[in-house]
């Protein structure tokens, strides 16, 4: 099992979400974050342009079975891409254990809907 985390543009988030759905990834969490990086967001206040070195992004996080890692990453990379500085990152981490709270399923069994 792997955790996939991605930091993507707010404007790309819904597109990423749709791409993940098309890759059969329908269980994920996200939150809006502030951060800093190479991209800049300038602001204006009463005639003065200024920059607080802060940008807004969406941080997505979900855990998948190993068989789904490749297609999850591909879905994100394709849908979040613009080519401009500030597109974001994808991180992959090893997950030791996963348990579904309702049924007590462990491991891979907890990561998909049993039809």
């Amino acid at each position: 099992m792997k955790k996939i985390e991605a930091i993507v543009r707010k404007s790309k988030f819904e597109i990423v979400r749709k791409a993940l759905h098309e890759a059969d990834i329908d269980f994920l969490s996200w939150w809006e974050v502030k951060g800093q990086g190479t991209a800049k967001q300038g602001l204006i206040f009463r005639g003065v342009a200024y920059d607080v070195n802060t940008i807004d992004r969406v941080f997505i996080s979900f855990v998948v079975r190993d068989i789904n890692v490749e297609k999850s990453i591909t879905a994100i990379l394709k849908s979040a891409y613009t080519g401009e500085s500030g597109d974001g990152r994808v991180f992959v981490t090893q997950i030791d254990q996963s348990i579904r709270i309702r049924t007590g399923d462990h491991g891979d069994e907890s990561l998909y809907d049993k039809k």
Partner: protein
Amino acid sequence: MVLPVLTFAQDTTAVVAKAVEAIVPAVAATPEPFISAGNTAWMIVATALVMLMTIPGLALFYGGLVRSKNILNVLMQCFILTAVISLEWVVFGYSNAFGSSTGFLAPYIGGFDWAFLNGIGINDVSPYYISQATERIPHLVFVLFQCMFAVITPALIIGAFAERIKFRGFLIFSVLWAIFVYNPVAHWVWSGDGWLFKLGALDFAGGTVVHINAGIAALVMAVMLGKRKLPNGQHITPPNNIPFVVIGAALLWFGWFGFNAGSGLAADGLAASAFLVTHIAAASAALSWALLDWIINKKPTVVGISTGAVAGLVAITPAAGFVGVGSAIIIGLLVSVFCFFMVSVVKGKLGYDDSLDAFGVHGIGGIWGAIATGLFASPLIQSAYSGAFAGNSKQLGIQLIAIVATIIYSGVLTVILFKIVEKTLGIRATDEEETAGLDITQHNEIAYNESE
């Protein structure tokens, strides 16, 4: 204390007038003044409109501009000033500002004859009038109308010290300022005894008394308190709620109709003229600022257009009863240029932290407005008054005297009052208070509780 006999109200031969020279005395058959229902109804509404300018107009305008950890502090400052200055006003403030005293202080401050509004009956007519000598309003309505001006003036200064002042120090300072700066300056300009009134200074609704007065105090406070401790070497922080800024500015514009059109103390042609030029100056200035933003920074901003509208309203305030619509357009278009330059260039270069531009907008706007009154006052509006462009260049000189006198007095007194409060109670918030936010440290409240 023996109260001297008052000769106001019913004595038509020695009527004290507000910004109008005493008319030809004792002409045969000047009718007895009486309470006009129409004028009174308007003035009661105008009074309410001016109150709207402080709460929630100014409260939201300033509140939306600060960071969210400080918004309640700003709202509280506006609210408590509404309460405490209203009380101060009826207890002795009105008497000091608009009453009379005897002796050498008479041109500078009134006495205590009207303390607790003693001697003012509910059916007494106002001794002050502008265009309507006979059909007047109740004295008590005039008292309350002026009360709202006394409330908003110290509230304007909030913009200079927002986000870094202790609440108790702010409150004591503001009340002392109202007593020792606002009341005297109001007396100078608007009381029949006042030396600036007698000199012929023109200030229809408070360009000097309210805006220059508060604006200079704001500059002094900003300098004396020092800058806010902002991260990353910034000197600007993003406003926490720009929709509030817009609502506040719109309420200010709306309420300003009472501020300016009500300063004629009647519902007549003069009020109509003041009403019109107020609106047109605001519109011109709003557009002007939006265009400046657009040209200089490539994008018109909402905070910018709101600020422009307010600047236009400030500038037209002293001129509202003296200028025509063409002058109002020019006054409005230019005030945004001056204020924009002040806040975007000069403030940064000089390095003082007038966090919400109380000086940049009210001080500079008020100075321009007072000068503009001296230039554009037209006898077509009120026949007794004309400015430089109508051939009376002396008026400009008189305006400059009023401007300079107010700047010096307000500046010096603000320094003194600041020092007194600083040494006794403390006025600057500590670094910890400033970083944690004034809402939680001064009021134990959080503005936006989103947990549920």
